[in-house]
């Protein structure tokens, strides 16, 4: 599955959220991540995030795509990293 994850958390928790997401997905820009992930790994990611979130204040939104077939990525300005960069 392909996902795009965005979060909006209080400043003091931003670094924690960033660290957790970086383990699973590719960082694209501030508070935005993308990547291919399995159902199980996504669940682990969500659990980890829930552990640090204040669910009355923060929010995390995950857009899920079953395939990448209908996804097109367009960047204006600086080219940002993509999860497709498997060659570095």
């Amino acid at each position, binding site marked *: 599955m392909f996902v795009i994850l965005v979060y909006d958390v209080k400043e003091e928790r931003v670094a924690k959220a960033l*660290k957790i997401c*970086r*383990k*699973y*997905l*590719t*960082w694209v820009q501030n508070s935005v991540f993308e*990547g*291919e*992930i*399995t159902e199980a*790994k996504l669940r682990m990611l969500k659990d980890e995030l829930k552990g640090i979130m204040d669910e009355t204040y923060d929010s995390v939104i995950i857009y899920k795509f079953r395939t990448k077939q209908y996804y097109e990525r367009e960047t204006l300005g600086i080219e940002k*990293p993509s*999860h497709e960069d*498997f*060659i*570095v």
Partner: protein
Amino acid sequence: MKKPLYIFSSGRLERRENTLSLETQEGRKVIPINSVSEIKVFGELDINKRALEFLTRNQIPVHFFNHYGYYIGSFYPREALNSGFIILKQAEHYLDREKRMYLAKGFVAGAVNNILKNLEYYRRKGKDLKETISSIEEKFKAVSSVDSIAELMQVEGEIRKTYYESFNLIIQVEGFYFDKRTKRPPENPINALISFGNSLLYTTVLSEIYRTHLDPRIGYLHETNQRSFSLNLDISEVFKPVIVDRVIFSLLNKGQMQLKHFDSDVGFSYLNDKGRSIFVKEFEDKLNTTIKHRNLGNVSYRRLMRIECYKLYKHFMDEEIYKPFVGEW
């Protein structure tokens, strides 16, 4: 899905905040650990024990290649999947001459059938391969009567020689010509491509074996000896024509790979960085291509390699006799 990571740039790979960080001259790049299945290193990489520990914990093998793209060796993390039973069975099939011959012949048969499929495909496209095909078919008949691994290897070598010679008919691109197979060092661009592709394939298969209970040290066609891994070489035989050779044909025939992507030194030839990255992209695309499998629906070629391992399981446990993968296009 987890993907292999290819590192061409030089820098330092380390564990940082529980994920991987690659520090190069262009800056730091964070790689999500949970999206990496294996790492192939071509650049000058610094790595420390802490990083290796972390890779072990996440069961990620690392394969190293030298400046010219030759395989040097692997960091093969402690086996995560252990089964004494499978190892015993694997050894039993090695020690018993007849059982070993069966598997060795199986790998050769898989390789030859896939070679024939390739040739057949290009013959249909109008290349003059009739003679090559019948000559290979003729030589292949000898396989059923051989009764030693050395003889089998010899037959296989001859078939491969005939096959490689036909590359000149399949690849009709100015500047690319195949005279004879040379390794260490490869003497011309086509040899360089074959060598590079094969070593990529060996490590890919090795990574797939790592995810099964099989022991890569016990091979059947390739002697189990002082060399560390041999089962991956066996399984690779079956897939070389399907993956490596087809990638080479398509890259050259479509003009994506050109002479400018090679560096040559006195008497030998190898891919430069740009050439390698073109090759790796096409190679990965190929592995991710899905085909329709008779029983399993759509499966990728990478998946088929794992399935090949599972077929060996079944063979060792007397559940189902091993039959190598043969493409059906």
